[in-house]
């Protein structure tokens, strides 16, 4: 998860924007306290969204308080929502550890050497995250499937983007629906699935040039053959990414009451506007400073 899922803040109501900032601040503080202090510098928007989604799906009450942030040098509003924060911060710790392991497998040279030094820190994050009650199996099984699929894709080249995204989507579906039962779990699973699919595919799109150079697994390169072919199918890629957000939005609407709550409005903003904005950002190359590309 790399910070693609964020709201379009100019379009939010002022109160909703303040609540979203408070959730981010609260999650940052919570992860600093429970999943090592370093996690405060690594946290990203995707996990703030996960916290908002979990708080909404579990109907957890969010309380705000005024606290001083040591990095902003002023008092600000911070949310307290322990259940959702434990889930978001916990899985952040676990996923960071497995992301580092994956990088160590893929990379060579100085980068690999540098990342080896981060392994003790990531192991500590994982240990602390486990103490928060996270279920590591929710993460390991889909990641194992994904690794097997990437190997198959490199050898045979017959893995579709949907099939590749399915593994990561199952991972996020498991996290979103953890502890829920009945229809709530069904809705959470479906919402989590499409968020995971979106994140996996937009990350693949963002890494398109890099993967074409390095020869790493990329589902779009496998589907379309080459970098230029993939770039010429930008509209098709955009459509499939936006499709996921549309399904998410329609599914989430099933659990909304007659009057939308601030959390509902934040989630709809991210799904309906944030998703499109993220795709536009990645396609225009604004998301990746290293790789300037001219896709439309």
């Amino acid at each position, binding site marked *: 998860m790399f910070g693609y899922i964020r709201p379009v803040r100019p*379009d939010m109501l002022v109160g909703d924007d303040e609540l979203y900032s408070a959730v981010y601040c609260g999650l940052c503080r919570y992860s600093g306290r429970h999943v090592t202090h370093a996690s405060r510098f690594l946290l990203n928007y995707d996990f703030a969204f996960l916290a908002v989604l979990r708080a909404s799906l579990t109907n957890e009450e969010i309380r705000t308080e005024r606290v001083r942030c040591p990095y902003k040098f002023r008092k600000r509003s911070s949310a307290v929502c322990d259940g959702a924060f434990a889930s978001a911060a916990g899985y952040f710790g676990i996923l960071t550890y497995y992301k580092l392991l994956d990088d160590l497998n893929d990379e060579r040279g100085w980068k690999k050497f540098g990342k080896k030094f981060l392994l003790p820190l990531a192991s500590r994050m994982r240990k602390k995250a486990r103490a928060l009650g996270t279920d590591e199996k929710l993460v390991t099984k889909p990641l194992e499937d994904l690794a097997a699929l990437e190997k198959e894709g490199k050898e045979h080249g017959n893995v*579709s*983007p*949907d*099939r590749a995204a*399915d593994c990561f*989507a199952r991972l996020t579906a498991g996290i979103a629906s953890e502890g829920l039962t009945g*229809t709530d779990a*069904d*809705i959470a699973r*479906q919402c989590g*699935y*499409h968020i995971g*699919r979106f994140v996996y595919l937009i990350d693949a799109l963002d890494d398109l040039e890099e993967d074409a150079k390095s020869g790493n697994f990329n589902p779009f390169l496998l589907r379309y053959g080459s970098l230029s072919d993939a770039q010429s199918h930008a509209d*098709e890629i955009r*459509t*499939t990414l936006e*499709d*996921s*957000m*549309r*399904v998410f*939005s*329609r*599914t*989430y*609407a*099933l659990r*909304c*009451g*007659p*009057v*939308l709550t601030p959390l509902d*409005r934040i989630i*709809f*903003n991210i*799904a*309906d*506007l944030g998703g499109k904005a993220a795709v536009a950002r990645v396609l225009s190359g604004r998301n990746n400073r290293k790789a300037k590309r001219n896709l439309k």
Partner: protein
Amino acid sequence: MTDPYKVLGVSPNASDEEIKKAYRALVKQYHPDNYADNPLANLAAEKMKAINEAYDEIQKMRAGGSGQTGSGTYSQSGSSAFAQVRQLINAGSLSEAETLLNRTPVSERTAEWHFLKGVILYRNGWVQDARTEIDTACSMDPYNSEYRSFQQRMNTGSTRSPYGEQGQESFGNCDVCDVCSALMCLNCLCRSGSRC
């Protein structure tokens, strides 16, 4: 049963008109047609049922007329094998439906086959492959309204979202262009009147 007023999101003191308005908005939102392609279609149908029951309850309590009912199922005819596949899809047995569908020889894969394949893929969350199949079905049978409406539904977001295309429409149906065109029409009428 829960408080019918809460289900419709209105206060017990609301007027009949307000209740009808809230009911219509919810019916529009949760109509099964909006969720026909969604794996949680049955949930939308349940919501719809609860809304209808709440509305009926309020009508009865107020000794008014009868409430409206409305629900829709998503199925259509076809060959017997495809009818069975449809039944399995509606029952939520997607893997069984897919296995049955894949038994059809390649030479006998009609537009309906591609459509059903697309529905299964869509419900599994494999949206890109689903689009390919639905597009194939539509190109093989361009006049089939079922395939066309599914294709259109794939392009629509939530009717509930204040940020969606339909949600933004609900902020106000009258924009500057509407006002200008109305004024132009009125102006034409005024001129013609003065000349007569």
